[in-house]
């Protein structure tokens, strides 16, 4: 059974008198222990899909269709109730680790404040947990790290910290929005490995947003291809990459440089 | 949250709050020369002579009784008020009187000129003589001035007080008054306020108000403070403001002012331009609408026929004052060959004389002269700059003010060619006036009055000085004060208020 099942999701934003349709009848599933990769060119609605699951669609957005999370309907859920799921059951990692952290708060504070809020644990306990989780995501010297500020870390380290923050409340779903785009290839490899590991160990349902087929090919189990807010193709990783069904997917893969695409 | 109200003001008990816009440099009596300082000093210091009930024509005994020699050259002062005591309890002696006079002369301060050419001599423990080389009939009118207050010589000397320029007692005297008057200084702050408390050794009737707070506030605040009972005495209200105080709020006490307002004209053609032409000056004199000026200066203000206030000896009778005559003015202008060129007209923009705002006065004059075809180019400046320009004799035309230092016509001799002020308009020579002045100096008794009146009438006729209006000195007194004395000598007597 899928952890999240998205059906006919539509999203439109009204600004002034103009209404733009960002998502059109998007449907796909996320399953526990599997990484679902969403690919597509810039502006195709990848991020907005992730945000819709989190209940963070932009102001003035109209959401319809259904997002079923473990039997609970997320579309139209009151904000208060949604808030209780966010950070606990549903968590998210953003593209640019440097800007996803508040520059004036310590890392320890930022990765535990939702833990303290949701599970009402003391600051001390929370920090101890933070140290443990940072160790798990392979951040060097976790005890010192919790006392440091974001600018004292490199991008790769910050992204690991962001993952720590995302899993600290044992969520069921993790949405990763281009988590490696801002990083170098060598760092990217480490993060991808971490993602795989977390997904497998914690039985997370992961939504991985990216426009890099290399990344998808490495870690995604299922691939969803989007174009202008429409899902054009969904399928198993190998099948989609080696034998794309849709013309659009094929052209995307063909446009890639070099000869990485194995025949 | 109402923290004020006249009831509470009454409840403020023995404090009297008086307000004025400060012009305060010092309250060392022998240096002070401004309104605020003399207001304070007259409450702190007693003087050798006084004016009888504030009548400026009647000098009478103060601490001393006096006798003037026949030739007006020698004055004998005899200590009369035996019980008078300084605020530290020391009795007032002839030494104190002589020291005070000598210090006034010696330190060369602004009021030193009062005793120019006078020799002070202590004769015995009760007597001091003042001897002048020239006849000095004005002396009895001079001595009541609060600048000639009697100080405790012993204490002042102990605090660097001397009778020459080395004197260093000014600051001491600002903070620790040494007078025998009803009050003494509690706190002196030249920027914001001066607080006086009763002098317990004062030998006169004990004042009802034991504390006097003299605050530095603008006229508009004074008005609201009187109206709301925040203050009991306001010195600077103009006539419009005074009108707003009704019976329930307080009373207005008006007295003829001892200050004169005039237009000066520079007699030097290079500087004065058209103003140097007597015809032009006379045209100006004829173009002014004096009734409107009286209206502006408020109830109680008077026409002036010369610079000498109407109450003084030597004043020219009011009914001889110039009148408006536009036809005449235009004719005179034609004779002067004036063709409407702009004449710079200087005045102090920040000064009000007994409630007459000089800026308003200048605007009014400009509008009136315009009707006769005279164009004034207004040149306002802060008093200090303005005074600078006037003093250096570089201003063609403008508004001048003169406050009597003592109520005697000799005080106005400075306006006659040869005098200090006449120099400032480059008016150096007029044989006719010279002759009249000599005659007046020699005149005695009633003849003196007439001789001076003749001199000043002739002066006005030259139109170098155009007398505008004698304003009225207004003191607004809050309703919580039921009885008070206010006269030309001391505009409000704190000690006698009840």
């Amino acid at each position, binding site marked *: 059974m899928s952890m999240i099942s998205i059906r006919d999701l539509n999203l439109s934003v009204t600004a002034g008198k103009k209404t733009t349709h960002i998502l059109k009848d998007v449907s796909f599933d996320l399953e526990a222990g599997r990484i679902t990769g969403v690919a597509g060119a810039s502006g195709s609605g990848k991020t907005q899909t992730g945000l819709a699951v989190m209940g963070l669609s932009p102001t003035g957005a109209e959401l319809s269709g259904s997002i079923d999370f473990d039997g609970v309907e997320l579309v139209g859920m009151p904000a208060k109730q949604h808030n209780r799921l966010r950070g606990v059951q549903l968590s998210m990692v953003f593209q640019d680790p440097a800007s996803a952290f508040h520059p004036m708060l310590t890392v320890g504070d930022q990765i535990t404040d939702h833990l303290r809020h949701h599970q009402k644990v003391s600051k001390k306990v929370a920090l101890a947990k933070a140290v443990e989780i940072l160790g798990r995501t392979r951040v060097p010297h976790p005890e010192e790290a919790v006392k440091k500020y974001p600018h004292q870390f490199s991008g790769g380290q910050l992204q690991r910290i962001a993952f720590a923050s995302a899993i600290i409340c044992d969520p069921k779903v993790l949405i990763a929005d281009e988590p490696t785009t801002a990083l170098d290839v060598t760092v990217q490899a480490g993060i991808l490995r971490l993602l795989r590991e977390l997904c497998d160990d914690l039985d997370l349902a992961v939504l991985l947003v990216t426009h890099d087929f290399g990344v998808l090919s490495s870690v995604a189990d299922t691939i969803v291809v989007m174009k202008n807010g429409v899902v054009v193709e969904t399928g198993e990783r190998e099948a989609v990459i080696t034998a794309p069904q849709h013309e659009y997917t094929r052209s995307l893969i063909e446009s890639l440089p070099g000869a990485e695409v194995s025949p | *949250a109402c923290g004020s109200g006249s009831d509470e003001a009454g409840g403020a008990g023995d404090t009297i709050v008086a307000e004025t816009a400060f012009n305060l440099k010092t309250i060392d009596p022998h240096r002070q020369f401004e309104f605020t300082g003399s207001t304070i000093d007259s409450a702190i210091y007693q003087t050798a002579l006084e004016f009888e009930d504030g009548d400026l024509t009647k000098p009478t005994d103060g601490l001393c009784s006096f006798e003037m020699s026949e030739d007006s050259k020698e004055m004998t002062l005899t200590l009369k008020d035996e019980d008078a005591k300084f605020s530290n309890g020391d009795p007032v002696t002839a030494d104190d009187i002589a020291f005070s006079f000598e210090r006034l002369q010696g330190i060369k301060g602004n009021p030193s000129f009062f005793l120019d050419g006078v020799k002070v001599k202590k004769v015995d423990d009760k007597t001091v003589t003042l001897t002048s080389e020239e006849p000095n009939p004005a002396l009895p009118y001079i001595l009541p001035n609060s600048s000639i207050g009697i100080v405790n010589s012993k204490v002042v000397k102990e605090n660097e007080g001397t009778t020459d320029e080395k004197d260093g007692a000014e600051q001491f005297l600002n903070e620790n008054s040494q007078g025998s008057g009803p009050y003494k200084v509690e706190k002196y702050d030249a920027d914001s306020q001066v607080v006086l408390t009763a002098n317990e050794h004062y030998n006169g009737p004990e004042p009802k108000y034991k504390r006097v707070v003299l*605050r530095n506030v603008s006229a508009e605040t004074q008005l609201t403070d009187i109206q709301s009972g*925040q203050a009991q005495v306001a010195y600077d209200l103009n006539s419009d403001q005074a009108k707003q105080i009704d019976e329930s709020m307080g009373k207005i006490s008006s007295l003829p002012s001892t200050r004169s307002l005039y237009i000066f004209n520079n007699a030097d053609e290079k500087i004065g331009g058209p103003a140097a032409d007597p015809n032009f000056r006379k045209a100006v004199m004829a173009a002014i609408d004096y009734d409107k000026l009286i209206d502006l200066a408020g109830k109680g203000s008077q026409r002036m026929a010369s610079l000498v206030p109407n109450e003084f000896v030597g004043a020219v009778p009011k009914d001889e004052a110039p009148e408006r005559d536009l036809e005449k003015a235009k004719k005179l202008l034609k004779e002067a060959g004036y063709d409407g060129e702009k004449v710079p007209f200087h005045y102090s923009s920040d000064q009000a004389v007994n409630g007459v705002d000089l800026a308003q006065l200048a605007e009014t004059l400009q509008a009136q002269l315009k009707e006769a075809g005279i164009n004034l180019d207004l040149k306002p400046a802060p008093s*200090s700059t303005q005074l600078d320009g006037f003093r250096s004799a570089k201003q063609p035309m403008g508004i001048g003010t003169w406050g009597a230092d003592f109520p005697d016509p000799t005080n106005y001799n400075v306006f006659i060619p040869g005098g200090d002020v006449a120099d400032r308009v480059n008016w150096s020579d007029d044989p006719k006036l010279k002759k009249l002045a000599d005659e007046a100096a020699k005149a005695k008794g009633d003849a003196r009055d007439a001789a001076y009146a003749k001199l000043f009438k002739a002066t006005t006729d030259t139109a170098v000085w155009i007398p505008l209006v004698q304003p009225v000195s207004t003191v607004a007194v809050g309703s919580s004060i039921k009885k008070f004395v206010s006269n030309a000598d001391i505009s409000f007597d704190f000690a006698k208020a009840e």
Partner: protein
Amino acid sequence: MAEATTAPLGTDVASASGEADAAQRVKPPKLHPLLRFILIRIGISLILIWGVTVVTFLLTNLVPTDPVAAILGDRAAADPEIVAQTREKLGLDQPLLVQYFTYLGNLLQGDLGVSNQTRTPVLASIGQVFPASIELGIGAILISVILGLLLGLLSALKQNSLVDHAIRTLSLIGISAPTFWIATVAYFVFFFRLRVVPGAGRLDPWITPPPKVTGLYTVDSLLAGQMATFANALGHLILPSCVLALFTIGLLTRFSRSSVLDIIRLDYVTAAKAKGLPARTVVFKYIFRGALVPIITVVGLAFGSLLSGAVLTETVFAWNGLGQYAYRGATTLDLPVIMGVGLVIGIVYILVNFIVDLIYGFVDPRVRVR
């Protein structure tokens, strides 16, 4: 997959290049960055203060008036001998440069000269009037910071709503109103007509000021335990500080609005929301803290406009502060007073902004050096 989990997770290259970073440093910094930052700020402030002395000195030398005449008064100034003596005593016969160094030397000894008008030492007078302005300024700053920040925050959080438009319009009107006029109107209405506030001045005139400790009547009266005086001083403070605050409320509202709007768009705010934190935490812990740094700077700037406003407001409320003192000095061309006030205000402004910079440096861990 097994491969992925068992393979050693190589250190990030980014952290490895941190070591390279150290190797590439040719000269390591000698000072702790924060210390260096503070020293630089002190240096800049000192240079500015020196500049202020030059400006005040030059400005007053522009004044086309003879200070001697003002000092001596009408009578004594007529005597050329006394005038010459005074000139010499004041050093006015010296060349400009010498005069400047004399001035500077005196300044260093805390001698700001003596007022031409009142003969009171300028430093002493400023000591008297300065606390009055500070009291007014603190009152106004408190009011405007609290109201300004809250309104700005509200307006930004409700962007484009009716509340937002109302607040924006009001704050624009707030910065458009001439302070002296508002002061007059407010005084007329609240004191003269309604009598809900006490009149002009810092205390009712018959009340003796509390013993001077700080010079702030509210504080001093509390220290002396004089509750009635405290209430009175506070009552007198309310209207002037509200009037004075009006402009800065507008200023701060507008600034905090735009500052908050900038922050709201940032990723870390979305990240905080995605963590399911309650709105209160997101707003105050994340948004507000981020917005505060630029706002602190503006509070420093606002201080300047408060001083400007004070000149005009103090006149209306007979508030015997620095503003009125400056005004009297300027209109009577009392040079030592003008120089003294200019210097003090310049220094205070520089100090305030120095402190603001320091706070900035401390609040923001990424200590920045210009």
